[in-house]
């Protein structure tokens, strides 16, 4: 009975959606053998290397795993600070 009530109110996440989200993450790690902590280390090292050459905002760096077919792709989004702001400092 609570099932349909919750559905009408719409505040309950469907369990199938949750299964899919959880599987998505698990499969990324299974396929690449990369744990979240390794990914975090990787991110920090990338930030460090890039920062040596250009000024970036470390808090805005995003490193994600993308799936294309059965291939995994590492996508890095690294915003560079604008040159004007760099000069002003």
């Amino acid at each position, binding site marked *: 009975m609570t099932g349909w009530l919750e559905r009408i109110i719409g505040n309950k996440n*469907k369990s*199938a*959606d949750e299964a899919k989200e*959880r*599987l998505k993450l*698990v*499969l990324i790690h299974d*396929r690449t053998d990369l744990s979240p902590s390794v990914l975090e280390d990787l991110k920090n090292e990338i930030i460090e290397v890039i920062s040596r050459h250009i000024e970036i905002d470390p808090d805005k760096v995003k490193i994600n795993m993308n799936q294309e*077919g059965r291939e995994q792709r590492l996508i890095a989004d690294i915003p560079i600070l604008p040159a004007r702001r760099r000069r002003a400092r």
Partner: protein
Amino acid sequence: MTGIVVTVTSGKGGVGKTTTTANLAVALAERGQKVVCIDGDIGLRNLDVVMGLENRIVYDLVDVIEGRCRVRQAMIRDKRLPELYLIPAAQTRDKSAVSPSDMVHLCDDIRQEFDWILIDSPAGIERGFRNAIAPADIVLVITNPEVSAVRDADRIIGLVEAEEKGPARLILNRVNFDMVRRGDMLASEDVLDLLAVELIGLVPEDEAVMIGTNRGQPITLADRSQAARAFRSIALRLMGEDVPFEDYRKNGNFLKKITNLFKQGGG
């Protein structure tokens, strides 16, 4: 005639490999194809009981490989169909009794006599799995819409690719469409999205499967159930026909109620 070797595998146990193998074999044989099934699960044989042929075993796969009998002697003919045979697994040995190259040689020996050689793979990713996929031309991965089964299927699909036997084709078995409709079971689209493989079969959860297994009669032998229809469609797709997937979601509760009514009535 050059037989096509189809290996049915899954990673996780209990998702319906043996049932699928038996029913695909029956469906292909019904279409006039010459079919032999090989139970690859040495030490845990089950294809014989699912097909209802357990009382007729004399020789088994290991006897053939170790030269105690000829392949023909180990083949049990299923009398319900003109050209359906089973080579049972050994029950008292283990997987190390057979090697991948033994399986390749065996299949090469019988390929000329059959249209289809179906191999029921054991669960897991060890020797038994490698034996089962070694001779495969086509690998069918079975899974259920459930997190652990999907995860294991992904692993198996990767291994099949690594062995250059890919791309594997997916059978999504035991789908409860009422639960899918309620959002409490992964839909086939979700599973395909995650696994990124081609779907060859969508089999609804069906009580008829259990009843058939109890009796040693693969449901595809009888005409009525939804699952039997799904297995027949898979067989046709293997034969190269373009069979559309049934949209069970549209059928809704109404059709189910009607079929249940008939099932009760028909006993």
